[in-house]
């Protein structure tokens, strides 16, 4: 009998700890499918962050390293430089990890065009610690630490990571996707695959920002959360490719 659906080999068959309706599971699967399709599981080393995906090291079948909060791009730099010909290195980071405490590591890894793949989950909140304001929380967004809504006069504006990094000469590829519909999931997978392929081709720093949902800390049903992505998140964080240096060069 033909197999029409299977679990990716590079995703371990264990229950994930994520909340119902959380999109981490989808993104994990997409990353694992890409690793399978590219046949790179045996030489891939993943770096897990601090945050909701801290235990990603228990879910991916490739070698995994747990980094300190925000330091994944620096750890990835070390792993990549240890054996640039063999090691395929990806980091999997949330918005607090990548865009707040680890912003320096993110920016400089991009500036160096470090030949790594970064999967950036932006759900506009600190999930693991129970729903605090993130560097990407929207203006007016109610969180545990912005109980009256994010007041931009008091704590400034959310950071648009792809737009910001696109100004750097070093970064190779920056794309923002989401996973709130089948169509969007397909687009997201293409972007993730490209971000890994770029590394295999030696093209350099490739980051895919995935606009994700957090029904638990947003205080919504999973369905309402997916709708909120369309209505609130995407207007602030427009989807699309923000930089594709190789394609731009070819176009010239």
């Amino acid at each position, binding site marked *: 009998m033909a197999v029409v659906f299977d679990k990716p080999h590079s995703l371990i068959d264990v229950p994930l700890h994520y909340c119902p309706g959380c999109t981490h599971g989808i993104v994990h699967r997409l990353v694992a499918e890409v690793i399978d399709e590219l046949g790179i*599981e*045996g*030489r*891939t*080393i993943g*770096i897990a962050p601090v945050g909701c995906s*801290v*235990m990603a*090291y*228990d879910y*991916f*079948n*490739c*070698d*995994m*390293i*747990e*980094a*300190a909060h925000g*330091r994944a791009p*620096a*750890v*990835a*730099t*070390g*792993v*990549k*430089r*240890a*054996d640039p010909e*063999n*090691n*395929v290195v990806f980091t999997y980071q949330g918005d607090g990890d990548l865009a707040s405490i680890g912003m*320096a*590591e993110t*920016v*400089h890894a991009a500036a160096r065009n470090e030949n790594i793949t970064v999967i950036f989950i932006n759900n506009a909140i600190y999930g693991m610690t129970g729903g605090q304001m993130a560097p990407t929380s929207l203006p007016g967004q109610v969180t545990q630490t912005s109980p009256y809504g994010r007041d931009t006069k008091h704590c400034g504006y959310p950071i648009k990571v792809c737009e910001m990094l696109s100004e750097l000469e070093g970064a190779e590829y920056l794309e923002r996707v989401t996973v709130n519909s089948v169509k969007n999931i397909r687009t997201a997978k293409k972007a993730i695959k490209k971000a890994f392929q770029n590394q295999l081709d030696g093209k350099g720093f490739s980051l895919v920002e995935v606009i994700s949902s957090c029904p638990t800390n947003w205080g919504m049903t999973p369905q309402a959360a997916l709708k909120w992505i369309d209505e609130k998140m995407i207007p602030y964080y427009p989807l699309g490719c923000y930089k594709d240096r190789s394609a731009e060069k070819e176009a010239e």
Partner: protein
Amino acid sequence: MADKVLMKGNEAIAEAAIIAGCRHYFGYPITPQTEVAAYMAKKMPKIGGCFLQAESEIAAINMVYGVSSTGKRVMTSSSSPGISLKSEGLSYLAGADLPALIVNVQRGGPGLGGIQPSQSDYFQATRGGGHGDYHMIVLAPASVQEMAELTVKGFELADTYRMTSMILADGTMGQMMEPVSLDFDIKPVPEKPWATTGTKMEREHNIVNSLYLSPEKLEETNFERYEKYKYIEENEAMYEEYMVEDADIVVAAFGIAARVSKNAVNEARARGIKVGLIRPITLWPFPVAPFKKAAEHAKKFISVELSMGQMIEDVKLATDCKVPVTLCNRVGGMIPSPEQVLEAIVEADGGVK
């Protein structure tokens, strides 16, 4: 015997690291250790190694964490304020049982402090520095030759015990030039089956990690790690004894303070004072045995330090506070003169009579 070359202490560390097989160095500029980075920047590209100037001390230590996870020898160097920044990473390295060599060419503190020599990071180094229960092997060179030798030794100990070794030097050691022999017998690097080198689809995945959400498991891990520390304490302590056998007074000093103290001891001996010197070479594990033994006959100890008195606590612990220990010190980048140490010895001798 190979020829000796004239080198700065910092350069001797860099060259010895390369000889020991280190091909990855990450650092961030800070005085007075800059020569280590400069040497690596010149040398590494020529031998297929990697020198990378990181965006911060924090990034540098995490790059070290990354390379170490793959099982390769790796190092970073810095000076006091930079080591404070690296301390987060030092804790994670300890928690993940990763080997690495860290060099601290100390300067005066606290805060930005100064750029002149100091030994005031003794507590930070010997007690771990970062959060949680852990130790690093702390090596205190007192010559350029030892800067090189202890670098090699540091890598070997780190790999043997899967933990970080720190060279705790100071600005004087880093900057001064002496003839040094770089003829080392490098032992083979132990197998590292735990390293994240890619599974090659031949084994279960390896995980480098310091997170244990089960308190039982975390406790067990800490207990196991401290069993290892106990073994190291019993087997790896290094020290130099100088005229201690019949001493009434024992000077304790490491690094540059020990060199100054040795002069003072010689002068005091010439004056007929029975004084000796114990120079700890490992600060952790602290060489307890020679102090315990000396406390059986010595009536006074003097701890000579470039700090407000940090090692003095370990001297008191090692001697079970059986004999008085006084402090002879300068701080802030100042170094005690042999005369100052001699004065302390003479004063202690007056008490003896």
